[in-house]
C-alpha cells in the first residue's frame, strides 16, 4: 500500500480549475520531486494535502496509509503523520517558539500513544535538533517566524519536521531563499530523516536542491496536472531546456 496516494484530484479556487485530475502515488522510502512553472498548482496541491479550509477536492480522493483524508481536518492529518513545510511560513506574534514546538510535538506524541514530554525533557530535545540545523537557541525563544529572515524561516520549518517525525513530508520550495551553506544544512537535515518508513515530496524550481536531496522520481506539474514523470535526469532536462519544450511535447 502506498504511503500517500492521490487519485484523480480536481480542485477549484474561486471557480477556476487549478488541479485538473492529478494522480500520484508515493511509497514508503521514496523521495519524489515535483517541478513546474509558477502558478501551475504546486502550492495548491500542498495546501489541499494538508487540509487547508477552502482547498477541498471537487472530486477524486487522497489516502494516507490507506486512510481517506476527505473528512479529516488539518490538525488530525498532521497528527496522523502528514507534514507541510510552507513556501511562506506564517508569523505568529506573541507565540513563543519553544511552547509552539512543544504543543505540536506533544499533540503528535499523544496520537502515537507515546508519553508527552515534560518541559525539561522537551527543551533538551529541541536544543539538540536545533543545533543540528544550526538554529540558535535564541531563535526558539522568539515569537514563531516573527522577524526571522527568509532562510531562518525555512530552517525552522525543517526543524519542526525533524521534531514531528512525520510519515509523509511535503516541502514546498524549502530551498528558495536559502544561501548555499543553508541549502546544505537544510538538505542534510532532510536526508538525515530519510528512511524506509517515511516518504518525502519536495517541490522545487531548482535542480540544485536535487543534487543534495536526490529524488527517486521527478514529476513535472503543468496547468494542474502531472504531464511527465521520470528519474533524476528529468530535472536536469528542465534545468537545460526549461519547461516549454516539455509542455509542448506533452
Amino acid at each position, binding site marked *: 500500500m502506498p504511503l500517500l496516494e492521490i487519485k484523480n484530484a480536481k480542485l477549484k479556487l474561486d471557480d477556476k480549475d487549478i488541479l485538473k485530475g492529478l494522480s500520484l502515488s508515493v511509497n514508503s522510502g521514496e523521495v519524489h520531486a515535483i517541478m513546474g512553472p509558477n502558478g501551475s498548482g504546486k502550492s495548491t496541491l500542498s495546501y489541499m494535502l*494538508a*487540509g*487547508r*479550509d477552502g482547498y477541498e477536492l471537487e472530486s477524486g480522493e487522497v489516502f494516507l496509509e490507506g486512510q481517506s483524508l476527505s473528512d479529516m*481536518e*488539518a*490538525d488530525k*492529518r*498532521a*497528527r496522523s503523520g502528514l*507534514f*507541510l513545510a*510552507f513556501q511562506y*511560513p*506564517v508569523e*505568529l*506574534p*506573541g*507565540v513563543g517558539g519553544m511552547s*509552539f514546538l512543544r*504543543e*505540536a510535538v506533544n*499533540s*503528535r506524541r499523544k*496520537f502515537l500513544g507515546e508519553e508527552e514530554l515534560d518541559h525539561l525533557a522537551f527543551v533538551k530535545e529541541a536544543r539538540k535538533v536545533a543545533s543540528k540545523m544550526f538554529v540558535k537557541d535564541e531563535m526558539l525563544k522568539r*515569537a514563531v517566524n516573527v522577524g526571522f529572515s527568509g532562510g531562518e524561516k525555512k530552517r525552522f520549518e525543517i526543524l*519542526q519536521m525533524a521534531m*514531528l517525525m512525520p510519515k509523509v513530508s511535503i516541502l514546498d520550495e524549502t530551498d528558495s531563499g536559502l544561501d548555499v551553506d543553508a541549502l546544505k544544512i537544510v538538505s542534510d537535515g532532510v536526508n538525515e530523516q530519510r528512511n524506509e518508513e517515511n516518504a518525502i515530496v519536495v517541490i522545487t524550481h531548482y535542480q540544485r536542491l536535487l543534487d543534495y536531496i536526490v529524488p527517486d522520481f521527478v514529476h513535472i506539474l503543468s496547468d494542474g496536472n502531472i504531464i511527465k514523470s521520470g528519474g533524476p535526469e528529468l530535472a536536469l532536462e528542465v534545468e537545460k531546456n526549461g519547461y516549454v519544450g516539455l509542455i509542448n511535447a506533452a
Partner: protein
Amino acid sequence: MLHNVRDNYIISVKDHVSQFEEKSFRKLASNDFKSWPSPREETWRLSRLGVLSRKEITPITPNFKKQISSVSKFNGSKIIRFVDGAFREDLSSKLPPGSSLNILGEEDSLRCFHKFKDSNLKDHPSTNVSFSCTPSIVKLTIEKDVKIRDLFEIIYEGGDDDSSVHPALYIELKDKSSITIIERFNHLSSLIMPLQLVELKKNASINSLKIFNDNQHSYNLSANCTFLSEKSNYNSFSLIKGGLFTRSETHAYLKGENCNLNLNGVYLSSKNQHHDLTTAIYHDVPNCTSKQIVRGVLGGKSTGVFQGKVRVAPDAQKTDGQQMSKAILLSENAIANAKPELEIYADDVICAHGATVGEIEDDQLFYLKSRGISEKKAKQILITAFLKDIINESVTESMQNFVFEEAELALSEIISKEI
C-alpha cells in the same frame, strides 16, 4: 401630573445635595445634571445610557462598618481602600514618607471641580453627579523628588443594588516624583461613577494600572482627567472585564513640552456585556508623544467600543501621536466598534492610526493546525498571544504576570463558550 420616571435619579441627586449651601461645589454640580446624555450626542452614540433613566437608583450613604471582601493581591503593597465610594482610613495602610492622603475641604474641592469643568469632561454625567454626591474628594500627594518604591494598591468596593457610588480621587505628583499605582474596581453597585483627577508636575512619572471588574449587573462610568507638565510621563493600562456596562473615559491634556503619554487597554467581553474605552488626548504644546494601543476579545452578544480622539493644536509641532485598535470577534453576535478621530491643526507632526475588527487570522490558524494542534487549542494560543503581546508592551515587568492572569480568567470564560 405624574413626573417622568426618567427624572427619578435626577431628583434623588438633588435631594442628596439639598443640605448643602447654594454656592457649594455640590450644588453647582447638581445644577448641571439635567439629564442623562442622549444617544444623539456623538460620544454617547455607541454607548447608550437609556436604561439608567428607567432604573430606580439612589446615591448611596456610605456604611462605615461594612465588611470588606476584596483582598490585596500584592505582598507588601500600600493599600488604599474605598468602600461605598468613601475613603476608609481605618482599612488603609500607613503611607511611606513623601506621600500623603488628605480629604479636601470645601475650597480645594471647588478648585478640583473647576478643573473638571474647564475640561471636556464638563458634561460627563459622572462629573456632575459624583461632584454632587461623593462622600469626599480624597487627594493623594507625592512630594517633590520622592520616588515611591512601594506599590500603591487602591481597592474600590461596596455599593448595593439600586444604589450609586461616587469615589473621587485627586492624585498630584510634584516635580520629579514617581509612583506605580494599581486600581481595582470591585463594586456591587448598580451604578459606579468614579472620578479621578491626575496632575503630573515637571518630570513626574506615573505607572497606572486599572482593572475594572465590577459586579455583572453594574454600570461603571469612570471619568479621568489628567494634566501633564513638561517632561512628565503617564503610562497607563486598563483591563476591562467586569460589569454589565463599563466605560472608562480618559481625557489627557499635554500642557508641557517633551511629555509622554501611553493610554493602552484591553477589554474582554462576553454574554451581554458592553465595554467602552474612550479617550481624548489634547496635544497643546510641541514635542510630545502619545500612544494608544487597544485590543478587545469579544464573545456572546457583547459589544466593545474604542473611541479615541487626538487633537493637535496649531502650535503643537513635532507631535508624535499613535493610535492602534484591534478587536477579535469570537461570536457572530458580538460587535466591536472603533472610532478614531484625529483633529490635526499643526503641520509638522507624525500621527498614525489604524483600527481593525475581525476574526482570528485564517493563515495563522491553519499554520497551527497543520502542526497537529487542535482548532480549539490553536485559537486559544492565538488569542493568548494577542493579549500577552500588548500586556508585555504596556505593563512593567513585575506586574505582567498578574495582569495576564487577571485577563486569562475572563478569557477562559469567553473561550469556553465560543470555541
